[in-house]
Every structure is written in C-alpha cells, then in structure tokens.
C-alpha cells in the first residue's frame, strides 16, 4: 500500500488532523504569520509533535513499511563481540532499566537476548534497577520461551534478579558472586542451579551485555568491572541521553555500544540479516518501525528551530534599521 492509498483508506484520520489544526490556520489568516509565531501558544507545538509521531506510527503499523538501515561501526562492533563467542560461553546480561526508557531499550534487550540465544551461549540475567527483573521476565517470555522452547532454565539461562546497592553490587560480584546472590529470582539456591557451578565471580563471564537507562548502569560497569579487570569485555545498549557521554570509553573500556533507537535499529538489522530468515518475526523489528516517527519528529524539530531563528533575525534586522 502506498501513501496515496493509505490516505484514501484512512480519510477519517486526515479529517481529524485538519480539524485539529484549523484554528491555528485561522489565526494565521486573521492576525498574520509573524504575530502568531511570536506569541505562539506552546500547546500548538505539542499538537504538531503529537501528529508528527502518531501519523508515521499509524502508517507503518498499517503498511509495514520501514526505512532501510545501514549499520554503523559501533553497532557492528557490538554484533561482532557476540558473534566471536562460542557455544556454551557464559555471558552476563544486566538489564539496568525500567519501562520509562523501554521505548529505546526494550528493542535492544530483545535483540541481545535473541542473538545470545541463537549463539547458544549461557545467559546469566541480573539487574541493578528494582524494575529490572520485570524487564528480564518480559525478555525471557518474549524471546526465549516463545522462540527457543528447547532452552532449559537453570542449564541454558538463569534469572538472578535485582540487588540494591548500585555500584556496590558490581564491586562485590566482580570478586564474589555468591555472597550476594544466594538464590536466583525464584528462590532456588544458587548451588542447586547447574549453570552456576564454577561461577564464583563475574570474571568467568566471556562478555558483559548491559542495557542501561542511567544510574546505575554502563558507567558503573566500566568503572567498577572493566577498568580494574581489563580482561572483562563489555558491550552496552544505552539511551540517547547517555550515548555521547560514553564515547570517551570506546574502544578500550567499552567494546561496543548501541546508542538510542538508531543503534537499536542498526543492531536489529544485523541480527535479522544473520538469523531472521526471509520473513522475520515482526517483534524483532520494533526499533526499525520506530525510526519512522523519529525521522518526521526530527524534521519537525529542525523546522521549528529554523522558523524561530528566521523570526529572530528578521526582528533583529528590523530593530537595527529603526
């Protein structure tokens, strides 16, 4: 279905959009563009942002079209870090986020879980945020129990849950895992879980995969795990707000990073290209779908800044010539 067909089918949506912005156009006609823009009620900007995000979501939801993605160097480095591992290698997946950042991070968590499951690595899930265990449960449900039912809990993957203390947790588990994690998230003693045998501390992990929304997260993993123990390797999926702050750690302390929804989309593309088959399951295309509203909203923000600056310079010139 192309754009014209979509607009014809969903004509009611067009009507709603036009009706909602009609008063703004009426103001432009009666008061003049410059006056309206100078005293613009911010709620009109909110409305424009609402439509800029909702309409692409609706279009992509109905048509299934997504933009092509070309993975960048960092996404490829993250992918390669997991690809180089062998079957049975232990990896620690730390989901340090909550639903508030889920928009950017849940696609990363899903893609990471899938990639690690496809590689048949041993997954050790943990969380530094109180709501992290819910994120782990959802990933396990969405990916492992749904698409990898042959994986056995306790042998192929284990959910160790949350511990409070933020960087204090990392500081302890990097030398002594079992003092803090006496049971898994479901109350089973750690000594009774087959895959916990021989895991005294996280230095046994071949890779740490961290999905992080803030404090405590990637920065703490770099400072308390990777920097003092350089043999540890770390890749991270982080929010857009944090991503620029971690570039100084790349590549010595942070060996791969997915930054914001774009990083998630690039990584999803790499995973489905390798493991997705001809018709990849749409739940693994979440970030790719979200790039549509991203693009339109970015153009809106750029447009708003340009209009505001044009207005500013016009006023300044008028002020200078008076």
């Amino acid at each position: 279905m192309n754009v014209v067909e979509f607009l014809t089918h969903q004509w009611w949506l067009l009507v709603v959009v036009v009706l909602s912005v009609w008063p703004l156009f009426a103001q432009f006609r009666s008061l003049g563009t410059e006056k309206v823009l100078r005293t613009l009620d911010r709620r009109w900007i909110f409305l424009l942002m609402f439509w800029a995000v909702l309409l692409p979501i609706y279009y992509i939801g109905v048509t299934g079209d997504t933009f092509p993605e070309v993975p960048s160097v960092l996404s490829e480095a993250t992918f390669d870090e997991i690809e180089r591992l062998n079957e049975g290698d232990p990896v620690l997946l730390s989901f340090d986020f909550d639903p508030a950042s889920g928009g950017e991070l849940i696609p990363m968590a899903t893609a990471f879980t899938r990639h690690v499951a496809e590689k048949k690595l041993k997954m050790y899930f943990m969380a530094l945020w109180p709501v992290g265990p819910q994120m782990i449960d959802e990933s396990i449900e969405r990916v492992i129990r749904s698409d990898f039912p042959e994986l056995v809990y306790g042998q192929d993957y284990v959910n160790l849950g949350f511990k409070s203390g933020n960087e204090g947790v990392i500081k302890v588990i990097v030398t002594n895992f079992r003092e803090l994690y006496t049971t898994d998230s479901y109350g089973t003693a750690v000594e009774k879980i087959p895959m916990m045998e021989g895991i005294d501390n996280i230095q046994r992990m071949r890779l740490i995969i961290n999905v992080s929304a803030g404090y405590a997260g990637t920065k703490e993993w770099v400072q308390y795990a990777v920097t003092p123990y350089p043999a540890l390797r770390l890749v991270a999926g982080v929010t857009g707000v944090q991503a620029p702050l971690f570039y100084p750690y790349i590549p010595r302390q942070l060996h791969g990073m997915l930054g914001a929804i774009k990083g998630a989309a690039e990584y999803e593309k790499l995973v489905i290209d390798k493991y997705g088959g001809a018709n990849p399951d749409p739940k693994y295309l979440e970030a790719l779908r979200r790039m549509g509203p991203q693009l339109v909203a970015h153009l809106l923000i750029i447009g708003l800044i340009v209009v505001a600056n044009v207005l500013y310079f016009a006023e300044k010139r008028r002020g200078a010539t008076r």
Partner: protein
Amino acid sequence: MKRETAIWALVLILGVVALIGRAAFTETGMGREYVRAVPVPETGATQYETSTYGAYLQATAADQTQTEYQFSLARTVGLWVAAFFTLAVFSFLYGDNPAYKIAEGVLVGVSAAYWMVVGFWTVLVPNLLAKISPSVAQGWATPGLSGPEAEQDLWYLVPLILGVMLLWRLLPKGPWIARWPLAFIIGTTAGLRLIAFLHGDFLAQIRNTIVPLAVIDGGGFDFWLSLQNLLLVAGVLCGLVYFFFSVEHKGVVGKVANVGIWVLMITFGASFGYTVMGRIALLATRLEFLLDDWLWLIDPVQRRSADVALMLVGWF
C-alpha cells in the same frame, strides 16, 4: 472560555461515542486481553499466562469448546485503566487538571511501595534475614536456600542495627542517631567513587588520549586517521585548558580556551541531537500502546491475526 469548554465537551462526547462504537459495534472490537490457562500439577492451581487474540482465534477455530485460551476480564479492565492513566497524564499538556493530579498521586504511591517491596523480597529476606536466622527464612519464604550460602553469619547484625538507626530518622526525637548509618553510606560511597573515578575517568582517559599522531598503515602514511587523532588530542587539551580556571584566560591561553569552547559547543550540540532522539522514542512507545494494545487500530506484531490459525488448522 465558555467556547473552549463547549469544544472540549464536544470532543469528549465524540471520543466516548467513538470508543463505545469501536468496542461494541465493530467486527474486531478493541482493548481486550486474553490469557492461556496452564494447570500447575504440583500445587493444583491454574496459572494464567499472557496470550493474544490471535492465539485465541487459532484455538477456537481448531476446537470451539476449548477453554485453554480465554478472555480475561481483570486484565481487560487493567488495560482500560492503563489507557485512561496514559490519557490523564497527556492531558497535562493542555493544562493542569484533577485527572492528571490523581494519576500523579497514584504513580508516587505505587512507585514508592514498589521499591520497598522489591527491596524487601530481593535483599532484606535473602541477604539479611537469611544470614542472621537462616532457619526462619527457610521455614517461611526461601525454603530453597541451602549450601554454604545458607550458613548463619552474625556479622550481618551490623547492617541490621545500622538500618534500624537509619529508620530513626522518621521519628521526631533523636535525629543524631541516623547520622551513623548515613556516615557509613557516605563514607563507603566516597571510598568507592574516589578509586573508580580516578582509575576509570582520569587515568584511563589519559591513556585513551595517547593515540598515534602519525598513523603508518601498511606501507603508507594514513592522512585522515592521523588528522582525526590529532584533532582528538588537540580537542581534549583545548577543552581541559578551558576548564583550568586558576589561570586567566588571556593571550595564548585565552585563544586555546576559546578553541576548547568550540569543541564543547560541538559536544553539546551532539548531546542535544541524541537527547531529542531519545525523548521521541519514548513518546512513540506510548502512542503505539494506545493505537495497538488499546484501540486495536494497528497490529504491527500480528497479535490479532487469525491467518496463521487458518493455515495451521489446514495442516492438522
């Protein structure tokens, strides 16, 4: 203002009519949750796992009388409550109103209690109670506890006593009692961070900045990589000179600091760009929830598709 109220009343009435129409009078309907009943043989209870309308259609097409996949009234009510909470929070964009204030109150109450509950079951029971009195913990909430991790360790009385002292802060008398555990927390945090920041953010960053300024790759001189490295080192040094406020930023120092400001402005511009990216994805998620989970206007993950059902029925 009267006109505005009238318009909003009209919008609300139209919205309610549209919702009722969509929920009750369209073929697919909207906003329903389905579950899969899974009996648990060991306890005799039934566990209800999250399922989809598509799975329900598939099961019903195969067997009209099946009860494994069923409609869940409780979760459906929950879904509508979640949708109204979402709209209540969005309503703040127009103006502060009671619906938003109620939603905010619920969020504050639920999140504070959520953290307490999680802290209790994940740390206080297995890491405090089970260490001070393992038999009590095993007899009550962690019967699975065994092995060396189940041994008593009375050193854990120290955090217990400090914890009780910390809670003294809530009482009107004796505020000085809470200072001891607070001092412990501050001291350990300071000790942890001093080393971590010095090692990871200071020494390691100096090490990371020592990059070859003349990159010889294979046989030849790699100009672009060398230029990148040179710009990186120069950028770090200029930025650091800007932050050195003990020397007046005049003359050569002033010019170098000015270059540092340019580098920092580019950094902040990039941070702004990434922040915008981050925020929009969060909004996209909520709108997806409203359009997909609640209104059933889009189905990108094909949770309500019965096509798979027909295909599978044909196979069996």
